[in-house]
């Protein structure tokens, strides 16, 4: 079973399409995924070969499966690239009665949040720096209305509602960072890049980020795959 899994991973990995080559330009592309702690994974693999409380799929007995994080199903992994000629992006969020449409969002300073209020009450949103004093408040958003708000802070932030503590989105903001939201195992690409050095960032709200400098060369596609785990993020920071 585990060989079938490894074969599938290799097969999917080989299917990542490289961007089209453009004269005097380069690109970066690859696959992002996240995974459980390596020590747990190792234990799961060991236990799959012997009879124990762990099943072959590597999860704890029966009724605990729904309490575990299914890393293969994560759909809020982000890849960002810092661009010298960055143009602000717009990100859409919906505020429901008990939650926001996104648990997390990676964006750039100057990007716009387009928030639609589908909750039952007026919401006064604000952005607060995690572990710091950074703070930004937005104007009141009436029920059923939408509005644009520009994020002016960088770092690890939270978008919160003054009225309802269930309405919360964790933000990671960095100057001039173009971002793509992906599911685990999906591919990203940033193409049409001038040759030079760039900062490439991989982020998942619960695990944090891995940041690296990449060198883009003319008429070359650079492939960088990344798996975010507690271990890999810890080593990178």
């Amino acid at each position, binding site marked *: 079973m585990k060989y079938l899994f490894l074969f599938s991973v290799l097969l999917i990995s080989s299917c990542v399409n490289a961007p089209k080559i453009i004269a005097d330009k380069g690109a970066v592309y690859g696959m992002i995924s996240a995974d*459980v*702690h390596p*020590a*747990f994974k190792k*234990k799961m693999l060991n236990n799959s070969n012997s009879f*124990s*409380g762990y099943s072959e799929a590597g999860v*704890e*007995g029966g009724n*605990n499966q729904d*309490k*575990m*994080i299914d890393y293969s199903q994560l759909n809020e992994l982000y890849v960002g690239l810092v661009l010298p000629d960055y143009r602000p992006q717009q990100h859409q969020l919906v505020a429901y009665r008990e939650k926001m449409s996104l648990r997390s969002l990676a964006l750039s300073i100057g990007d716009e949040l387009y928030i639609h209020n589908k909750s039952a009450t007026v919401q*006064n949103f*604000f952005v*607060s720096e*995690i*572990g710091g004093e950074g*703070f930004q*408040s937005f104007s009141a958003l009436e029920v059923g209305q939408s509005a644009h708000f520009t994020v002016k802070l960088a770092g690890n932030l*939270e978008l*919160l509602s*003054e*009225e309802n*503590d269930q309405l919360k989105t964790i933000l990671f903001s960095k100057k001039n960072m173009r971002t793509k939201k992906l599911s685990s195992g999906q591919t990203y690409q940033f193409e049409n890049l001038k040759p030079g050095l760039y900062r490439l960032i991989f982020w998942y709200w*619960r*695990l*944090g980020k891995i940041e690296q400098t990449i060198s883009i060369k003319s008429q070359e596609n650079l492939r960088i795959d990344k798996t975010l*785990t*507690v*271990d890999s*993020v*810890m080593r990178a*920071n």
Partner: protein
Amino acid sequence: MKKYPFILALTSLVYFLSIPLLSAGTVVGLVQAPKRVKKVIVYLKREKPAKQNEPVQKHLVSQKDTHFKPALWIISEGDSIEWANNETKEIDHNIFSLNALNRFDLGLGAKGSKLAQSFSKSGVLNYYCSIHKEMEGKIIILPSRYYQLLDKPTHFKIKNLPEGKWILDAVVLHRRYKAVPIKLTIGKDTVNNLNLSIVKR
């Protein structure tokens, strides 16, 4: 007649033991906050940070039913937390935080195991288990041992403060608000009628 030396010794002992208490101050006051503010941790920190002489403490957090219990814990700088895996089934847990305040990964803890971590810097830190989605915890690390947790803004009383210059402040869990710190000089007498205001940022 033989009783008198004993009584004298006992009286002297009580007197000498009471000296530190007499030289310790107390602050009493009221937290005034808007209606939306619920939990507040009122604390005092020295105006000029000094080396703490008090012994560090070990706090215990349980891991049960794939939750951290309690999920919110308050400690002081230098203290440590021990997480005990108290699951009834064979369930492993991991404890990690990638907060800049204190980065740690305690690895894997099987049922019955205990994992510990100490905290040297004050601040607020979130931590997680990388296996179970509902396992999120928060630690509030205060710069001193002189604090009081209030479930809602109300009266507070903090005792046994050494003499000196202090700052009265609060951690407000609703992040839209913050406390307006007050500078205080603590002597032997109680400092009464303090009003600690919680205002919008």
